[in-house]
Each structure stands twice: as structure tokens, then as C-alpha cells.
């Protein structure tokens, strides 16, 4: 970092780092790619909020966004593909951690945090699929509700998470709040904690 040693970016990184941890093969930067995807998702997601309308108008508002708005299709595609990429890189990241046995004590808490983050990523991907508001999202909501009902107290949980979707449309206000605010927010803060633990531990090669 050299001259940045007194700056914030200097402090984000540990003072000392093991030479082995800097090798590309130690991490393949998979966590870094996941976080990059999350940043892209946050920026494009905020832009989509300006036009997206949950509920009845979900599909119509998205097709208008795709076809009428300048750069609307680009922004929506970026959001979609970054989401798909994040699920893949997060999964590969976990495979790497298991492979190099980085889940054992000292790093155990961060492994558990990562497991929670994986769950959140999958839920975010699923809820995003429902928010598209087409017929296939209605079917996906029906399947998801049926799965939720298998849990104890599942009917209540299903209503809290899904709202009242129809077989033709899985986009509801409830799903919107979960996707945009709760799931994404919790995932964001958990990631900061995740990175802080890495900083406290050994540190890794930055992306």
C-alpha cells in the first residue's frame, strides 16, 4: 500500500499478512468476486427501484423498463446476471473453504457467518425470481409456499414471507420488502462482519 498507509484503505488491510495467503491459488478471489457482484447488485437494484412496481404491475413495469427507458434493459440485465454470478461464486467460495479446511476453529465463526450468507444469497435469488411477476414466478411462489407449510407454524411463516401471491404472479409487496430491505440489508451487514473477521484473522489477497 505504501503511501496509503495512513488512509482508510490502508487501515482496511492487516499490517502483516502471510506470504502464502497472498497466492492467487489460496482463495481464487472467489469471495472478492462475490462481494463485487453484491456491489453491482446494490447499485443496479437501487436504480431499478425508481421504476419497478410490485404486485399487479410488476411484469408490465419491467417490460416498459426493458423496452422504453434508456439503458433500462442494460441495468436490468446487469442486476440479473450479477445475481446469477453471485450464487455461483458464493458456492465455489464455500467449496474452496472446505477444500482448504478453513472452517476449523479460529475461523469457525466466520464459516458459520458464511453459511448464513449463502442461505441469504439463495433466498435473495429466489425472491428476485418471484419479483419478476410472470407466470413462472407465480408457479415458483406456489412451490415455495408448499415447502414453507411443511415447517411447524409454516402457514404463518408462508404468509409473512410471501404475502398473498397468485398462481399467475409471485410479486407481492411482502416479497418486495424482504428482497429489497430485509434480506439485502442483513446480507450487507453480515458481509461487513465477515470481512472484519478476515481482517482480524490472517487477511487474504485483495481482489
Amino acid at each position, binding site marked *: 500500500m505504501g503511501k496509503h498507509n495512513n488512509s482508510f484503505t490502508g487501515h482496511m488491510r492487516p499490517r502483516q499478512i502471510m506470504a502464502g495467503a497472498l497466492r492467487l491459488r489460496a482463495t481464487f478471489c472467489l469471495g472478492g468476486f462475490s462481494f463485487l457482484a453484491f456491489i453491482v447488485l446494490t447499485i443496479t437494484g437501487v*436504480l431499478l427501484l425508481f421504476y419497478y412496481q410490485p404486485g399487479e404491475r410488476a411484469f408490465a*413495469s419491467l417490460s416498459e423498463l426493458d423496452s*422504453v427507458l*434508456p439503458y433500462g434493459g442494460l441495468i436490468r440485465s446487469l442486476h440479473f446476471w450479477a445475481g446469477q454470478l453471485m450464487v455461483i461464486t458464493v458456492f465455489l467460495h464455500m467449496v474452496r473453504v472446505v477444500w482448504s479446511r478453513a472452517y476449523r476453529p479460529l475461523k469457525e465463526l466466520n464459516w458459520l457467518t458464511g453459511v448464513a450468507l449463502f442461505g441469504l444469497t439463495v433466498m435473495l435469488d429466489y425472491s428476485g425470481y418471484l419479483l419478476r411477476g410472470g407466470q413462472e414466478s407465480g408457479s415458483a411462489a406456489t412451490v415455495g409456499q408448499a415447502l414453507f407449510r411443511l415447517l411447524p407454524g409454516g402457514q404463518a411463516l408462508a404468509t409473512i414471507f410471501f404475502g398473498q401471491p397468485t398462481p399467475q404472479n409471485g410479486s407481492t409487496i411482502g416479497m418486495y420488502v424482504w428482497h429489497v430491505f430485509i434480506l439485502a440489508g442483513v446480507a450487507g451487514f453480515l458481509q461487513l462482519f465477515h470481512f472484519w473477521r478476515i481482517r482480524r484473522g490472517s487477511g487474504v489477497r485483495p481482489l
Partner: protein
Amino acid sequence: MGRKALLVLGVCSIYPVSRYLRGKENQLAMAQIARSEMPLQIKWQRHGQTRFWLRQGNDRVEAMWASCTHLGCEVSYDSEQDQWVCPCHGSLYNRDGQPVLGPALGPLVRAEVKEKDGFYLLQQPPV
């Protein structure tokens, strides 16, 4: 990525983002055609790659907005059968746009035409 790359990326995205945020949703399509460019006939003719179709009516120019009233697919005029056909669910309309067959129940919607200084000004109907 370095700080400079991020800065360049940020500056480059200002214009697209501002275009996106200023864009109007539900903007209606418009077209302007020189009268000399499009000699009108009794039969419907399509204007370029748009959904506007024009013909010479009894006393004035008529324009059709070629969207099916069922689910909004693009219909086209078949001059041999003298009817409008929707490719999606097979709705048929007669030459004046009245529904004949299929899921569509309402007639095709006319576009507004104004003649001005040798131009036809077309405006998509708000549905």
C-alpha cells in the same frame, strides 16, 4: 481495481444513469412522415418498422395502431385476405379493425393523425 479505474467508471456512468432516471415511462410512440414519402392507397400500408399503418379513407387519412387488443401483440394487415391477423393467439379483425374471430373482443385502436406542412404527424393512442 485501482482508485483511478473506479473514478473513470463512475464518471462514465453518470450520463447513462441520468438518462435512465430522466426517462419517462409510458412514453407514447410518435412518428413524422413526409407526405411525398408515403403515397396513400385504399389498402393499409405499414410505415417503416413501426406499428403505424396508414390508408386513404373516404375524406381523410386514417392511421391504425397495430396492437392486438387481447394481449398487445403486434398485428399485421394481410392484404390478400383483407383482414388483420394476430400471430400470438390467432385473433382476426376485418379491414376496419372490428374483431371477427379469436380471443380479442375490442376493435383495433386508431392512431391520431395530423397533417401539417406536408407531413403526417402520428401519435400512439393511450390505451
